[in-house]
């Protein structure tokens, strides 16, 4: 989006505020739709944010949480919440509901932050993007928080600097064990989730492939159900190639008994290895980034043992940064950089093509 478009958006919003007799607020009233684990985590960040005030929650299954105070109204449905006077909503619902809620929120004039994935299929994200087009003054952002991890940000900066040369290939593994309660979770319900581990978790890795390597023209894959008999894929192997010739390999797994996040990025003059990830579960290991350089003037390096620098990261500020960016965009009209609806659409498109290449029938 151009600067001119941003400026126009700010002016339009200012005009609308003037017409309605309201000044640009110092604090934006926010509602959260879906108050499960993710919704609660977003609530903590909203409450702590100086520009946001949590004034409404909607969830049909969760009882009122008194800790949020009397000023926070509780609703049983998203429709009820959307009738409240709010500036923005966080949509933290199961995938099956996301598209409908996002579209309704935009029609109700609310800025929207929605969790990934953007629904269950391309048709869902297309509906949301259509509603976004019809509401040009509103901000829409999707929660691809991995982009905001320190290891990813530093990698992005190093790749962009060009000092490691030209991107050649990437190899990403993202896997979890599922665990004893896996088959009872809504994520294991084909109708609610729309896809298995690839759509739930692997989509983050696909998004990072795009962040570092741009879009991919070709996709080859093997997708299957190997352990969890829930009607969704629990392993997906994919090889992607861009028009420029970058190749990216993905293994997304729900049978990775040791939780693993590992992304290797090889460039013509060096490499990056992102290993471990600071997450809410704290089970993916310490977040590290190894930076190595090809140096054939050095004997050890030439023998395949280059000097490496390893960065350890102690804090996960990815969620906080996402909320910061959303609040900044809402208050200034600036464009979303990470997690645009186009990012969400392109990631969903890759998921769809991974399924399609192996003729895997996704749930939707």
């Amino acid at each position: 989006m151009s600067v001119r478009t941003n400026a126009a958006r700010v002016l339009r919003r200012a005009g609308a505020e003037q017409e309605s007799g309201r000044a640009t607020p110092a604090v934006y009233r926010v509602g959260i739709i879906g108050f499960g684990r993710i919704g609660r985590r977003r609530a903590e960040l909203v409450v702590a944010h100086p520009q946001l005030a949590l004034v409404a929650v909607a969830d049909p299954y969760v009882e009122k949480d008194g800790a949020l105070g009397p000023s926070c109204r509780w609703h049983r449905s998203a429709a009820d919440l959307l009738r409240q006077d709010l500036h923005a909503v966080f949509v933290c619902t199961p995938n099956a509901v996301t598209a409908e809620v996002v579209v309704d929120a935009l029609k109700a004039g609310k800025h929207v932050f929605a969790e990934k994935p953007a629904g269950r299929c391309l048709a869902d994200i297309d509906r949301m993007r259509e509603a976004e087009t019809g509401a040009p003054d509103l901000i829409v952002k999707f929660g691809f928080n991995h982009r905001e991890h320190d290891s990813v940000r530093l990698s992005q900066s190093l790749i962009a600097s060009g000092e490691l040369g030209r991107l050649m290939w990437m190899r990403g593994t993202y896997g979890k064990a599922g665990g004893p309660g896996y088959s009872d979770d809504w994520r294991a319900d084909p109708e609610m989730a729309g896809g298995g581990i690839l759509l739930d978790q692997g989509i983050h890795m696909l998004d990072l492939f795009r962040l570092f390597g741009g879009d991919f023209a070709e996709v080859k894959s093997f997708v299957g159900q190997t352990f969890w008999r829930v009607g969704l894929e629990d392993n997906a192997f994919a090889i992607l190639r861009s028009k420029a010739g970058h190749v990216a390999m993905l293994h997304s797994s729900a049978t990775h008994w040791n939780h693993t996040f590992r992304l290797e990025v090889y460039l013509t003059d060096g490499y990056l290895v992102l290993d471990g990830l600071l997450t809410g579960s704290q089970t993916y290991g310490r977040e590290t980034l190894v930076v190595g350089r090809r140096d054939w003037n050095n004997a050890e390096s030439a023998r395949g043992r280059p000097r490496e620098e390893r960065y350890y990261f102690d804090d996960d500020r990815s969620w906080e940064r996402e909320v910061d960016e959303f609040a900044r965009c809402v208050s200034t009209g600036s464009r979303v950089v990470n997690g645009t609806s186009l990012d969400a659409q392109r990631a969903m498109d890759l998921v769809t093509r991974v399924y399609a290449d192996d003729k895997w029938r996704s749930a939707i």
Partner: protein
Amino acid sequence: MKRVVTSGELTQRAMRPADLLDAYLAHVQADVTRFDLLRGGRERGCPACGGEGAFDCERLGFSYKRCLSCQSMFVSPLPDPDRLARYHTEGDAERFRREKVLPMTADVRTRHAEAPRARWALAAAAARLGSGLTFAQMGVDSPQLHELLSVSASVVRSSEEAIDGYADASADCVIAFDLLERSTDFSRTLHRCRAALRQAGLLFVATMSGDGFEVRMLGAHTRSLVPPVHLQLLSYAGWLAALAREDFTLVEYSTPGELDVQAVAEVCRRDAGLRLPPILDELVRHDDDQVGRAFQEVLQQACLSAHVQLVAEAGA
């Protein structure tokens, strides 16, 4: 906050050749006498936190104290600044370092110190502040560092004395490598670095650590410890205190030094009478090189290696 650990094939022999170091230290000793650095000094408290110090060790006639509060290490009495300035500008030790030590170790220093430091600063600055940045390179003049930084940033070079010229809060980043340990007025120098930075600008420091394994194991026997240069070696707690005083927030603290284990082993070999705690002695002198490397990596991970790299963000 993040920590940087490096692994590589750097050796003590390549970075600090024993014969060169012996010759350099002989010049230092002679210059200490020539410029009468041990006379007329003034007692001082901890430059990091202002705490009281207790005697730690004596090196080349200088007394090092440990702060009872933050554990930083500092020379006290502090030599007379004018005499110290003459030591740096007229002395044979500094000339020998410039004309012999640095050229003869230039390749390994560039590969293992200057280039990694420059890349570290550039990458961290770009990740936090974006591109098109202005760096103020302060302190010890390093054309190589300047050249490395200049590839992707605007660099303003300055000696410590000229820092006042940049007290306009305009720099995105200040590079203070090998600067703060040698300042005769630590607080003032740190304040000048702060004054040069814009709000949310970044200070990059590379210096010797007061917590480092080498100096804590060897004390006065630490061959890399040169009192006229290393007037204060701050601990982690000391850095926190000093940075907070200038409204900096510490965002990264790393000790990526690669030579502690080798350096301690070398001193133990030279001085058969020197005894470390038995288990450390065994680790340091272990026959298997991999054990030494693994131990060095543990020191880096625990931020207990000899050299500190830190990034601090300037407050409002």
